[in-house]
């Protein structure tokens, strides 16, 4: 299709704007380029996080010191957590696929505030550099865990301030992205695109954006208070001055539990796009998915106490938090039900993104159900702060968000780069990665049940077998990850040219060329009364 619009002659990858080369990217306000900037920066940080994770698993290969001592191990899990949470999974799908796809999916040329969007990425980079500065300079790498629990976070001699300010700035970046998306969805939908016709990925971005906006300031001010505590000793969290460290935990989790839904909601949105496309069937329960998305966003605010069942809380509060935790599982289960029902009697086209989506459902179910074990008061006391918890949240955060991210990159790759990847290698990468994932984390459920605590570089001899298996799994997983990355990087340069709509999807992004032109559409689309995102 030859475009008539002057700017749209070039696709966004080749377009020459005011700047050339690298500057043409880092100063670009094009939402598609910003999405890729996030993709590349997150891929780098994710790789660093994976290396740290591998180092931890290697340390746990045998009891006692294997490659590092206790202090280094503490620093490693802290940095692994900070990188993976604040720099990878929280920005995650919204920053990459949200930026790239949101305007196209609603028939707009860009987001509402393109310059603010670029500023968000700059804040992200600034936050990354601040945290990295904490590692390289100063009196020692932060060793508090990614949660920065008081009072240790203002007592420890390590270099906490840059890490705390880095996390604060990353939060600011997240807020600005959320704000931008909310205004974009409210104001820039193309004619005829009613709320009831939005694709589900857009709906989940909408729910996510509200959480980003309303939860992140809480952790922002909490981190500022910790920094002030460290600098001036204001006393808010310091028991010696009348403050209460438990208050810190409350404030931290008021953000950080909803943050879990910032991670998982867009992942669910991506899965809700992929399953109907590869089943060639209307999504089952469109409205139920929307309602459950918004329900998760709302109820997710009220469950933070379940992180603190052993920290000292009244029995009444514990009952409520436990009850609400069980309630928040229902909307997630509704979604799983909808995805499975969508496949029922569909004409299923088994391709790499579909493999990822189905394995997402599998690991997400295990992660979700083990979460109920932790949400139950009595069982929580038993497995609190054990390897069981680590296995649970890796099944959700890595198995959920991570698998959905890989599903999404394999689904939208031809649209983003205009080329198709090698499908055979992509499938091999998937199966190796999945086997590695299951081998790595499944033994940790067992180890946790047997009483192995988390956050120690050492363990008792009786846990040796499970840990060997787990470490072995980490190597398989890393192999799978390398296969996937090599395949994608190679294909982005040399893969076959992709068609406009290789998967026969019905959402708006499949109506523009691959890769999309600079302004997405020559003419803003109009959605007719009978059209919809899943009308197969």
């Amino acid at each position, binding site marked *: 299709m030859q475009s008539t619009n*002057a*700017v749209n002659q070039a696709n966004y990858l080749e377009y020459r*704007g005011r700047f050339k080369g690298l500057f043409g990217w880092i100063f670009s*306000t*094009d939402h598609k380029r910003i999405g890729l900037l996030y993709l590349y920066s997150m891929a780098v940080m994710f790789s660093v996080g994976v290396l740290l994770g591998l180092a931890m698993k290697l340390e746990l290969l045998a009891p006692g010191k294997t490659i590092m001592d206790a202090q280094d191990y503490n620093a490693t899990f802290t940095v692994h957590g900070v990188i993976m949470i604040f720099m990878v999974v929280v920005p995650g799908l919204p920053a990459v696929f949200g930026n790239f796809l949101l305007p196209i999916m609603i028939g707009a*040329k*860009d987001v*509402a*505030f*393109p*310059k603010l969007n670029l500023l968000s990425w700059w804040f992200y980079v600034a936050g990354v550099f601040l945290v990295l500065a904490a590692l390289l300079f100063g009196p020692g790498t932060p060793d508090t865990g990614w949660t920065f629990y008081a009072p240790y976070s203002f007592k420890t001699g390590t270099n906490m301030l840059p890490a705390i300010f880095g996390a604060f700035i990353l939060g600011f970046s997240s*807020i600005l992205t959320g*704000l*931008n998306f*909310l*205004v974009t969805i*409210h*104001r*820039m939908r193309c004619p005829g695109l009613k709320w009831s016709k939005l694709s589900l990925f857009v709906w989940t971005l909408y729910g996510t954006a509200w959480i980003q*906006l*309303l939860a*992140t*300031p*809480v952790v*922002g*001010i*909490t981190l*500022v*208070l910790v920094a*002030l505590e460290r600098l*001036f*000793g*204001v*006393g*808010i969290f310091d028991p010696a*001055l*009348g*403050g*209460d460290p438990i*208050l810190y935990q409350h*404030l931290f989790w*008021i953000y950080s539990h909803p943050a879990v839904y910032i991670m998982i909601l867009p992942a669910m949105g991506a899965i809700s796009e992929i399953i109907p496309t590869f089943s060639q069937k209307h999504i089952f329960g469109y409205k139920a998915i929307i309602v459950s998305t918004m329900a998760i966003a709302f109820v997710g605010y009220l469950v933070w106490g379940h992180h603190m069942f052993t920290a000292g809380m009244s029995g009444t509060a514990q009952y409520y938090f436990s009850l609400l935790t069980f309630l928040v599982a229902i909307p997630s289960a509704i979604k799983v039900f909808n995805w499975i029902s969508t496949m029922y009697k569909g004409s299923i086209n088994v391709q790499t993104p579909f493999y990822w989506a189905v394995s997402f459902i599998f690991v997400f179910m295990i992660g979700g159900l083990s979460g109920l074990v932790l949400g139950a008061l009595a069982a929580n006391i038993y497995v609190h702060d054990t390897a069981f918890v680590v296995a649970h949240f890796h099944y959700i955060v890595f198995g959920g968000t991570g698998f959905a991210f890989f599903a999404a990159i394999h689904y939208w790759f031809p649209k983003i780069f205009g080329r198709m990847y090698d499908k055979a290698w992509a499938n091999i990468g998937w199966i190796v990665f999945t086997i590695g994932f299951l081998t790595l984390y499944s033994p940790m459920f067992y180890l946790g049940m047997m009483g192995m605590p988390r956050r120690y570089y050492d363990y008792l001899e009786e846990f040796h077998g499970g840990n060997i298996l787990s470490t072995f799994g980490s190597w398989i997983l890393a192999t799978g990850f390398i296969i996937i990355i090599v395949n994608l990087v190679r294909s982005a340069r040399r893969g076959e040219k992709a068609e406009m709509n290789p998967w026969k999807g019905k959402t708006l992004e499949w109506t523009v060329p691959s890769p999309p032109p*600079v*302004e997405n559409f020559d003419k803003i689309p109009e959605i007719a009364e009978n059209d919809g995102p899943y009308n197969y």
Partner: protein
Amino acid sequence: MEKVTHAPHDHYDAEASKIGMWLFIFTELLLFGILFVIYSVYRYLNHDAFHLAAAELDTFTGAVNTLILLVSSMTIAMSVTALQKKNKPLTLLLNGITFVIGVVFLVNKYFEWGAKFDHGIFPGSATLTETLSQGEILFFGLYFIMTGLHALHIIIGLVFIAVVMWKVAKGKVHAERSALLENSGLYWHLVDIIWIFLFPLFYLIV
């Protein structure tokens, strides 16, 4: 080849800007909201100490600052109307008055904090940690954090107003494109209303 401009970036949507500003204000309210929650928790736990410590604050300076901030909110609201009536000099004058009042507020704050520092009352000071009770330490800790963060917002608001004045003078913000001025007004009102809550909580409840 003719120069192509990237059209979406010239896109102007006053409604979108205002929604964006309101959403940002939500985040600010949550930021301060959490501090108000902390204040209530510690006030409940240290009732008598908060009474004692609050008596140390200078109600007169606080009242003056409240009064002038209210006036500045009025002047910035008037400047929006003036711009809509296409009266550029009056807009600039009213914005200028708002700016000056903001500076006066900060000067008052400076003397108020300075007096506390002279008495040895500041976070981590020997006077504070050795002679006062834990409740009083918390009160002054919160006082410095909350009024300090508020003062920081006044400074951000002043920068915002200065930028808007420059744009009004240049003719980039005018009657048909007034969203930026209105947003600076919204932000200034936010800063004002936070003070409206800070003033009674710290100065008046003694």
